[in-house]
């Protein structure tokens, strides 16, 4: 891939939960976006509500940035322990900005720290709580954001608070801004990035929101879910917008209820999504199998986190591909989609509803903690096209829900629409849906359920190859959320004999999926898990083997530098 290196500043905020890291982040990214900077942000947090140490890593750039880096240009530690928390990521070019007294002991020789008495400045203005606003003012100044823009933004955000608070917020912002200007002048800390006017027209959206918007665009009108990180973001998103879009949102008593409600909803003409993480999905598997038996459409959002068992609740992994692939007893078809970008998350979630409905199957949208908690600016999603087409029919008298046909697909009807009666039976059943132990009929019904696999393969989304239509000598293969990270890493390596193949549909595979892999001399499969599950899937379903795997299963996402190093090691 062509050599490219983004001009960007990597800015990291670190502090214990509940200390305002989020306020600084939320205000800052919006302001920087309005100023025309490309923004990327990702979070890493502990499974606790207070204390511990969390960090938000931002990249502010003049061109698109969509991947995490190890490098830190500017570190804002908000408490003692914050510097140590990211010690591995520091270098002599990192600037640490903050209350020196808090972290002096944590800095090794040769690191550059600048003392900014955030809380002292804030206390003088009125209260320590304004520290975050001081920080926003300072950072705004370093990035040359116009003061007016900052001020308007802060006013809007705190609109409705009493005048004293508004005034003091304004003063805190001003004081921070002045500190920033002073730094720029006296300490030579300044970031000269060229804003891009297009950014203002774009949207800043997270993975969870992109899946949520995609679900709405796909006509979702039902979710019953049990909270579980990292899937909860989708549930809260749909809850927030439920009434506006006629979505029935329920917190189920457990995941078993959640998926069984989802199936009930589809049966009655609704469009439901079940959303959970690995542990919750494990409880759903009998329900998944029921979807297979009653040929019900179903969309499952499975946001992965590291297991087994409770694992690392707030961390990331691509460890549940096998689970999605093999979950549910008995044999029945399914589709597994795994978005790599926010645009894909929007498109594929909508597509999942359509596929599920057309082929009467469960369709997975497989994400992970890294993906749902990450956001960046991207072109506004286009919802102008009508993508919701119901695939059920108005039934006639004598209707047979499971009528045998060559295609294996019987027209699906719903109760209350037409004169026919609609049966769903988890036992093996006849064409009407009545329980049967006729073993010849059993064979026909199994064949019928599996016959649609043919269409699923025909409709499969093929992998995307970079550079387009190339025959790269060396090929990196990845799937799902790792896409932009690998992309940036390959751009940094900049070898024209090195290509990338990304799968946003991991099952079933597109019939031509293996072709570019077959042509490559060195095949490297990169996955955020320990077992190389996708490499195994390629072997099993496309009969193609990779030469190397790059695996990571610490609970953290890959970083660009890490991928550069590991690919270079293989190729050198």
């Amino acid at each position, binding site marked *: 891939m062509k050599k490219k290196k983004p001009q960007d500043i990597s800015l990291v905020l670190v502090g214990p939960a509940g200390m305002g890291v989020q306020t600084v982040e939320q205000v800052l990214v919006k302001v920087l976006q309005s100023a025309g900077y490309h923004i990327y942000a990702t979070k890493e947090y502990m499974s606790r509500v207070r204390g511990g140490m969390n960090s938000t890593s931002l990249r502010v750039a003049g061109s698109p940035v969509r991947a995490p880096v190890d490098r830190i240009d500017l570190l804002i530690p908000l408490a003692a322990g914050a510097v140590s928390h990211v010690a591995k990521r520091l270098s002599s070019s990192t600037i640490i900005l903050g209350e020196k007294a808090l972290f002096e002991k944590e800095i090794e020789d040769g690191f550059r720290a600048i003392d900014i008495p955030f809380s002292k400045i804030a206390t003088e203005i009125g209260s320590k709580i304004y520290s975050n606003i001081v920080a926003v003012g300072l950072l705004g100044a370093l990035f040359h954001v116009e003061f007016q823009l900052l001020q308007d933004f802060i006013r809007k955000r705190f609109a409705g608070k009493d005048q004293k608070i508004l005034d003091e917020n304004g003063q805190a912002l001003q004081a921070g801004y002045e500190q920033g200007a002073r730094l720029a002048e006296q300490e030579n800390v300044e970031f000269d990035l060229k804003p891009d006017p297009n950014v203002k027209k774009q*949207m*800043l959206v997270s993975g969870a*929101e992109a899946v949520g*918007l995609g679900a*709405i*665009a796909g*006509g979702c*009108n*039902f979710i*019953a879910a049990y909270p579980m990180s990292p899937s909860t973001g989708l549930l809260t998103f749909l809850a927030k*917008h439920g*009434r*506006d*879009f*006629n979505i*029935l949102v329920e917190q*189920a*008593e*457990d995941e*078993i*209820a*959640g998926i*069984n*409600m*989802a*199936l*009930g*909803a589809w*049966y*009655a*003409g*609704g469009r*439901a999504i079940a959303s959970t993480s690995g542990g919750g999905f494990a409880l759903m598997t*009998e*329900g998944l199998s*029921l979807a297979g038996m*009653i040929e019900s459409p179903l969309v499952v959002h499975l946001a992965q986190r590291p297991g087994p068992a409770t694992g690392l609740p707030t961390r990331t992994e691509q460890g549940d591909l096998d689970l999605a692939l093999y979950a549910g007893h008995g044999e029945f078809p399914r589709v597994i989609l795994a978005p790599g970008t926010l645009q894909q998350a929007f498109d594929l979630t909508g597509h999942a509803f359509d596929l599920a409905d057309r082929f009467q199957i469960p369709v997975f949208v497989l994400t992970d903690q890294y993906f749902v908690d990450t956001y960046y600016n991207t072109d*506004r*999603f286009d*919802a*102008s096209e*009508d993508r*919701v087409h*119901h695939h*059920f029919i108005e039934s006639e008298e004598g209707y047979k829900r499971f009528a045998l046909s060559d295609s294996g697909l019987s027209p699906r009807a*719903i*109760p*209350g*629409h037409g*004169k026919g*009666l*609609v*049966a*769903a*039976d*988890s*036992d093996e059943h006849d064409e009407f*849906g*009545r*329980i049967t132990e006729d073993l010849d009929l059993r064979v026909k019904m199994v064949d019928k359920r599996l016959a649609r696999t043919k269409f699923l393969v025909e409709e499969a989304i093929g992998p995307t190859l970079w550079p387009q239509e190339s025959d790269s000598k060396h090929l990196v293969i990845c799937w799902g959320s790792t896409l932009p990270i690998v992309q940036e890493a390959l751009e940094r390596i900049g070898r024209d004999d090195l290509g990338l193949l990304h799968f946003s549909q991991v099952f079933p595979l597109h019939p031509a999926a293996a072709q570019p892999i077959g042509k490559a001399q060195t095949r490297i499969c990169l996955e955020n898990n320990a077992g190389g599950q996708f490499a195994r899937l390629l072997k099993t379903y496309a009969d193609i083997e990779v030469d190397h795997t790059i695996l990571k299963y610490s609970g953290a996402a890959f970083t660009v530098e890490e991928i550069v190093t590991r690919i270079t090691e293989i190729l050198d």
Partner: protein
Amino acid sequence: MDEKHFTPENIDMAWCPGCGDFGILKSLKKALAELEIAPENLVMVSGIGQAAKIPQYLNCHYFNGLHGRALSPATAIQAVNPHLTVIAESGDGDMYGEGGNHFIHTIRRNPNITNIVHNNMVYGLTKGQASPTSRRGFKTPVQVAGVLLEPFNPLAVAIALDASFVARTSITDPDHTKAIIKQAIRHEGYSLVDILQPCVSFNKINTYQWFKDHAYPIENHDPHDRRAAFDLALQESENGKLPLGVLYVNPDKVPYHKAAGLYESDSSPLWQRPLDREKLCTLIAEY
């Protein structure tokens, strides 16, 4: 309306001759016919078990789902299309054992469904193990020394959770059963009808005669009096007596689909409501 409307053609029934399930099926059909419920408007939802086969023997829509899970799809079906009459019906093992968590939380949720439970105090389909309602000391091939556990008291649990309608009948009295089922279906909100049902194959203790001896009709009871209802429900645990009739009604509870807020200004089922794409574009523009 004739109850024959609900009888499908050519069915092969899997119940043992003499089983109480036949009586329940007949009482249910009569109740449905008397209420003039059209088969096209009725969805029977069940789990797995002998009792849970009941939809197979009825001419109507049905969702014969997983063991223990009938209440979840039933809730969703009714909430997605409130024009349908939804009945969730299964055995005691299915509803109170495997589905116990859903039983509790469905009562709290209060969907407008009727929950009929065939209480035969045994697992029929799996051939005679203890059920949650089996009496202490009941011997089975698994409970070889007799049941050690305290029997589950569904009525007491339901009243404790302020279920909006709680009743018990016995199929030893089919007319009473029919009458109670009718009341339960008419009731708006969750209604529980626990039906005492002899299993002639695997329960030689709780027989027709046993139910006749232990059950009695409630008299002079105000079903709005929750404490009195609770006292009646506790009798089965305290002195082995099984009061029959409507124990408890709370008419003030709002059914789930209404509380969920999607039917205030629009009564159409969700599938009839198109996606408001303009609103979606506006939402996207906010990011």
